[in-house]
């Protein structure tokens, strides 16, 4: 059960990343690209969490149910969770900025189509 | 030192007389070919004397003033750098001070002076003549250079003395026969050198009655006149030395130069005049190709 869960998470996450990348490469609307990014980002975050997964264990918080001595066999890896927290916040920050810039850019160029934004080239 | 000065003076005077005589002959011959009587043989002497006695009263500037000196000095210089008679130890002048290359380059000296004088006259047509003359000169110098190279490389020497010496084994040892194509090329270049038709384009502006000699008058002109006469003789002597075995005696020198002098005269009386660029192109290609044949022979 847990093995299947493990692999399905990995597959889902990888799929999310791939779908996100595909969206990034092929979408034209700037906000859709932003969405695709968020999708890919989510996938990566999922992968991060997945990388710390251990079967049948609980969150790394010491409370009544876990004894301090047997803790190493009771909880999952805390570091990926810490990292994913950071990564999520960064993702949010970047997404916010991206949306603001994207909205303003489409206002200025009169279109949300990224193909219109290639005055600078070569 | 004194003997050298005397020798040079003698040579220069002799060349002047001979040059004027040849000029007179040429005028006579030309007239006869044209069916005229023509001037007297001594007409050139008379002209020169007349011009020399008249004082120039105006000039156009320093270079204008100096040009006749350049002309005379250049002409005599070429003359004295060339050996005259083989084996003559009295009149050797400066013929050991330089070789063929020096002579060839020194020939420009007088031309440069002339050109500068013409330029200083402020007369546009004079300069047009100079521009044509220089253009043509550079063209025939191409083939003449080829000829010089044929001689120098073929005989392994640049010394005129040694070139003459190499031609002393009978008439077939003359460069005329040893290097017939080069000689032909040289003879063609002799025509523009002597300003003969069809290469007389330098003279053309004189015919509209303005041009270098027009601004020059009287005594200036007499200098240029004598310079030209001496220069002509010097070139003839050089050609005799280079191709016709040199001269073993004074008589032979006079004879050979006389014959050689007749060549341009005959040619020029029967040919019309080239346009400048035609002349230039002709000189680039025809005589140079001739000389090139011998040049190839020499190289191989």
């Amino acid at each position, binding site marked *: 059960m847990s093995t299947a869960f493990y692999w399905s998470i990995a597959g889902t996450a990888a799929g999310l990343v791939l779908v996100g990348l595909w969206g*990034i490469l092929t979408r034209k609307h700037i906000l859709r690209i932003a969405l695709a990014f968020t999708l890919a980002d989510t996938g990566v975050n999922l*992968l991060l969490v997945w990388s710390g997964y251990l079967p049948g264990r609980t969150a790394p918080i010491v409370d009544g149910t876990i004894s301090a001595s047997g803790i190493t066999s009771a909880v999952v890896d805390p570091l990926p969770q810490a990292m994913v927290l950071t990564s999520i916040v960064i993702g949010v920050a970047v997404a916010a900025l991206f949306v603001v810039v994207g909205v303003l850019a489409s206002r200025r160029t009169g279109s949300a189509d990224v193909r219109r934004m290639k005055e600078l080239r070569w | 030192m004194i003997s050298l000065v005397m020798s040079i003076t003698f040579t220069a005077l002799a060349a002047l007389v001979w040059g004027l005589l040849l000029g007179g002959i040429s005028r006579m011959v030309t007239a006869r070919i044209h069916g005229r009587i023509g001037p007297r043989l001594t007409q050139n002497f008379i002209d020169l004397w007349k011009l020399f006695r008249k004082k120039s009263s105006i000039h156009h500037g320093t270079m204008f003033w100096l040009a006749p000196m350049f002309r005379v000095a250049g002409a005599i210089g070429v003359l004295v750098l060339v050996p005259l008679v083989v084996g003559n130890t009295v009149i050797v002048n400066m013929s050991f001070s330089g070789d063929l290359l020096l002579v060839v*380059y020194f020939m420009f000296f007088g031309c440069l002076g002339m050109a500068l004088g013409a330029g200083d006259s402020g007369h546009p047509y004079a300069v047009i003549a100079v521009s044509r003359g220089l253009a043509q000169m550079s063209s025939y110098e191409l083939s003449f250079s080829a000829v010089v190279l044929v001689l120098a490389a073929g005989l392994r020497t640049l010394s005129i003395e040694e070139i003459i010496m190499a031609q002393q084994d009978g008439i077939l040892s003359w460069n005329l026969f040893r290097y017939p194509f080069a000689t032909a090329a040289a003879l063609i270049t002799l025509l523009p050198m002597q300003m003969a038709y069809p290469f007389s384009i330098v003279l053309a502006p004189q015919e509209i009655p303005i041009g270098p000699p027009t601004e020059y008058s009287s005594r200036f002109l007499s200098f240029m006149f004598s310079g030209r006469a001496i220069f002509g003789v010097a070139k003839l002597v050089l050609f005799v030395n280079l191709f016709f075995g040199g001269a073993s005696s004074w008589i032979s020198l006079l004879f050979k130069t006389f014959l050689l002098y007749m060549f341009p005269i005959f040619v020029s009386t029967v040919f019309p005049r080239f346009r400048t660029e035609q002349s230039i192109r002709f000189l680039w290609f025809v005589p140079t190709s001739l000389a090139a044949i011998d040049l190839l022979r020499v190289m191989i």
Partner: protein
Amino acid sequence: MVVALAVFLPLLGAFISVWLSRRKPRLSVIVSRLFLAGGLHSTIVLSIKLNAWSFSDLGNSIILRTGVGAPPLSINLEATGGAVIAAIVVYVAAILGISRLTSRNVKTLPLLLSLVTASLGLLFATDLFNSFVFLEIGSIITIGLTAACRCRRRWEVAVKVALVSGLVTILYLLAIVVIYKTTGELRFEALGMLHGFPALLVSGLMLTVIMTEIKAFPLSGWGLDFYEGASPGFAGVYSATWSLAVLMWSAGILPRLPIPNLQILAWIGAGGLVLGQFAGFRATSPGRMMGYSSAAYASILLILAGTTTGHDYLQLTLVLMIFAAIAKFTVFMLADPENENPLKSAAGNLLLLPILVIAGIPPLPVFWAKFKLLSILAGVSPLMLAAVVLGLFLEAVYLLRLWSKRPVRFLKNGRLVPAVTSLLMAAGAIWLTAGFWRSLSFSGSLLSSSTLRILFMTVFGAGTLLTLPGAWNRIKGERSYWFWMLLSGISLTFLPMAGNGITFYILWEVSAFAAVIAVSRGSRAAAGTFWFAVFAAASGFLLLASIVLSRSMFIAPGIPLILVAIAALFKLGQMGAHLWSVRAYSAAPATMSAFMAGTSSKAAVFLLVVAALGTGAVAMPAGSVLAWAGVLTALSMAVMAALSSDYKKVLAYASVSQMGYILIGLGLASVMGWTAAIYHTFHHFLFKMILFLGAAGVIFRTGTSDYNRLGGLIRRMPLTFTFTLISVIAFAGVPPLAGFGGKWFLYNGLIETGWLPIALIAMFASVVAFLYAFRLLHAVFLGQLSTVNARVKEAPLALLVPQGILTAALMLFSFRPTLFLEHIVPAIESLPGLKGVAPVINGTIVTTPLGNWNAWAVGMMVMGLFGFAFVFYWLSGKRPKHVGQLDIGFAGELPPSAEEVHYAGNFFKPYRRALAFLPRIHAGKVFSGITEVFKIAGDSVRAIFTGDARTYLAHSLIFLVIVLIYLRGGI
């Protein structure tokens, strides 16, 4: 503690300023500066503690531990020597850039300060995830500050930066997942613990991330757009803070990548360098040029990572990156923010120093690193060396174009930035030069013959001294150039003393680029300077390549020798390279032209002499190639000179043409030929200097060098005319003056060797020389004096006196050439490897196997005859009167104005007509043909930068795919 202060003081400042900037904007700027100053102080303290300034122990470090416990549990910040020096640059740039960035909106302050913290964090980072956080800070600030500027295209740039950094985030996090999952930790060292498939994947991901972040070609699309579209103020600060930090961080990661053969990085870099710089060659916008240059530095980083290790690697990356960053910062800071196209208005010549620094011209700091890099590459692969040299050359070309195209306009304020950065760059140059001092040598051992050495030094030294006074007589529109001329001259003078290749190269380049600067200060320099600079750069790079290829010797036979020969031909302006020399000589300030044509062109002769001797390859088969090159140039340039109607241009063509004779002489590889070459070198120096100084006088007085507007100056400038006349007679080769000697030796040598066709063409060329010689004298000094010039004065003494001295020398050596020859001939005879016999000197007579020449006798004879004719004429009766210039026989007409009568233009028209059958081969066309090829190459390369942000993302992903496939060894 100090590390923490260095990293986090700006952050505290940022936290404060976010509040303060709303209340008291001015105060917040001051406070921020204080915080930055505090941070700068800390970094300086660190650098002293680490002894980083020696640039030798860059691996030393001070560690700041953070959090609880020790790594791998917690995170360390490690201030290594190199990182600390980079951090100082970051601080300096931030402090200098702060006023520019906040002048419009003080609320950008927190972002700027945070950027400093992020940069330092990245510089000191030791942990992969920690680096990720700092990278994100940097990206966000980049997006924010780009969008906050008021450039027209800010949104486009911001969107592109955002998209790319988004992708980088994803790829980097994927790498982190794999790393952590596999190794269980996140320090940089974790990279080394990877094996097998994860290693491969991580390498691919990290390489893509790094190359995208450092903007290495072909992943540089977004960076190019960024530098072009962002405000110059921010682009400048960015390049010296964030970009520098990312480069240094990448420099730390790259060697740790678990790739089996790191040299592949170097190949990626070298390929990217060439292709990217081809594309850069086509860039028109200055910002974009800087972008391409930054891509070049990114590629160089990859090359370094692939070929060097340890100490070399640290040192080279540091020196290259920090000085390029400072220079780029300066370039951007010089841009005028008020201008529509800001960089184009960058402040004039202040731009030159940073550009030369980026281009790596010695002895500027970047040069030393590039030199060392090339020396290393010479041992790795000649192909890579060639690629890198070509790339660097292309970079130099467009950088120089950027400089040469700028309009001259100075910023009203903001001189502080260039002052400080120039000081930094100069200090770097001195510091590094001092560091490399031991590798320089001034023993003069490159040329064994001390006579020839002294001869060349005399030419260079005397040439400099004699032109110098003239440099103070400037015509309108010229700016002071004497200093650059002097600098160029001094380096030249020391050139013969150089004892090894690198010393030679440095002197050579300093002299060349000082000359470029001097030329650029002429009144109509724009046209000439660019090509001059390009050819100077080209010959410099060729020389450099041959030096590094030759290793211990100065020049080895084979390819290095060919490169050197080409370099010398370029310098001499031969074989089409006259393009630069003619343009530069005619565009330069007049005295500068004299210096270049008369003096500095001899440096190439010296180079050829040294190269031919050094390789023992004097009897090289290439000799005939050299001679043919020389003779064809001599002829074609002589014809060009005869047909052109600009005083200086004619002299320029003439100069190039005369250099051809020297080449023939050297190509002969016989004693006679070399005698001709050395003889001609010296005499060409004499008469070309006289000619150009005379021209300088004429141009100084009349303000024009157009034949049609000159004429008749003999009346106004008799002395100048006299000197010019003498030197013209000399170089036309008319006896009795000195020019004849060179030709005489040359033809002797040619006939001796049997190169008759060359001799023939050379003779013809020398007669053509006669054409332009006369035309020059006539058009300028004879003919009709134009009314405009009716009142001009004789040239100033500063020009006349040198001419007089040179003329005296010329006359002396004309009549007594043996004075010169009796020193030179034995010296040449003693050189190894020359064939043939030497001319014999006996009193005043010089004898060769073919002929003889008694210059003294001929001279005396000519003087005698001339004097006789003169005296004869003078004594015979009354003097004629000098009449007015228009008193000429004019076919009964009154001559119109002097200007109309003066016949100077369209001279030798028949000649032109006679030549009409020849196909017109313009060197200009040949070079524009080459340029066209380069352009097409550049266009096809840069076509990948479509401007669509998604294309850039696709580049990164495609690159990733290719790298993965390569690393796996196939599909």
